């Protein structure tokens, strides 16, 4: 929390309005999921903000927060990598940063060349993963008809085996 307070204070300083920062702007609510949701909802309904940013990890409280924000007419920008919460945030918020867009947001806003370079590197790795996925899919499909393709598909799969059992999503 002190880190969050300093980050907000620095942001006000960079914007040229350090006088607008109040220590009570960034407070600790609770670690409890719904206690947090209720506390934030109360703040939204009392203070009626014009814009709400819901960024980070969310569980069931995401829709409670988003719907309450919608009810006061605030513009809402959400961002999460939780695929289980995206179906709630996408229709409830005006804009949603999905998955990697959340992590790329700071680079996109700062425009620092080194940080933008990491986004570019990410894109290259994604392309490489895409090529490997396509290769695996082609080998796996061909393996249904050809014994040698089936053999190469198994060799290909063993290259990426972690030995931990795998499975799941």
């Amino acid at each position: 929390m002190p880190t969050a307070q300093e980050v907000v204070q620095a942001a006000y300083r960079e914007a040229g309005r350090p006088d607008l920062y109040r220590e009570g702007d960034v407070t600790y609510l609770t670690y409890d999921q719904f206690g947090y949701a209720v506390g934030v909802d109360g703040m939204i309904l009392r203070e009626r903000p014009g814009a709400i940013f819901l960024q980070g990890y969310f569980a069931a409280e995401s829709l409670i927060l988003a719907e309450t924000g919608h009810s006061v007419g605030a513009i809402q920008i959400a961002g999460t990598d939780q695929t289980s919460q995206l179906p709630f945030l996408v229709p409830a918020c005006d804009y949603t940063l999905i998955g990697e867009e959340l992590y790329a947001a700071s680079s996109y806003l700062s425009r620092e060349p080194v940080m933008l370079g990491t986004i570019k590197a990410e894109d290259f790795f994604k392309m490489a993963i895409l090529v490997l996925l396509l290769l695996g899919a082609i080998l796996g499909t061909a393996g249904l008809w050809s014994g040698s393709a089936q053999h190469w598909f198994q060799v290909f799969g063993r290259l990426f085996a972690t030995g931990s059992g795998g499975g799941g999503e």
Partner: protein
Amino acid sequence: MKREIPLAITFITGILVIITFFIPHRPFGDFQQRSLIWFSIVAGFTMLLGIDSLIRGHGKKILRRQEGWGYSIALIAGVVSTVSVGLYSWARWGTPFQLGSPFMYMYTYAIIPLESTMFAILSFFIASTAYRAFRAKTMEATLLLVAIIVMLGRVPAGTYLYHLIPYFGSHHPGALMEFQEWIMDVPQLAAKRGIMIGAYLGAVAMSLRIILGIERTYLS
């Protein structure tokens, strides 16, 4: 030094955790477990900081009679009563989590019903969000109507309605269930895995940026 020391701590800790992932032997092998214990201790102390900030902020609100000071009284009363009941239960029963203790009574008959209420409110919020989402104004929103097929396939009412459809309901009774399972197992799972691959790559890139000191926004 105000920026250099936290950067150095971040770098050393990050590199150590990465190394322990690849070297299971001592002294690296149990570093992850040890760092989890350290994290719990630090989290406990930061909780004290949070509670101090909470009580000071709301205390000021009450003293200055600012707008909403009545809610602050309720909050501080809740904090004080929970702490005192917990301490009393600890002193009397050895642990506040003993079944039958006042602390567990408060938890069972106050906290749990309140949390269940909040969870129940979700159902109404889902209904209002679904109403907004299912208005087919754009191509993307029309695609969301596929979700109706999944919904119908997962509830008894949907199965009942499907059986009323002439020919399909009688000749292919399991088709709706199979179709919604196919939607969940194939296109939905493919999209979810694509998002997760991108998200994990983004998380790796963000972690490397933080460890190497390229991303410094958390330092202010």
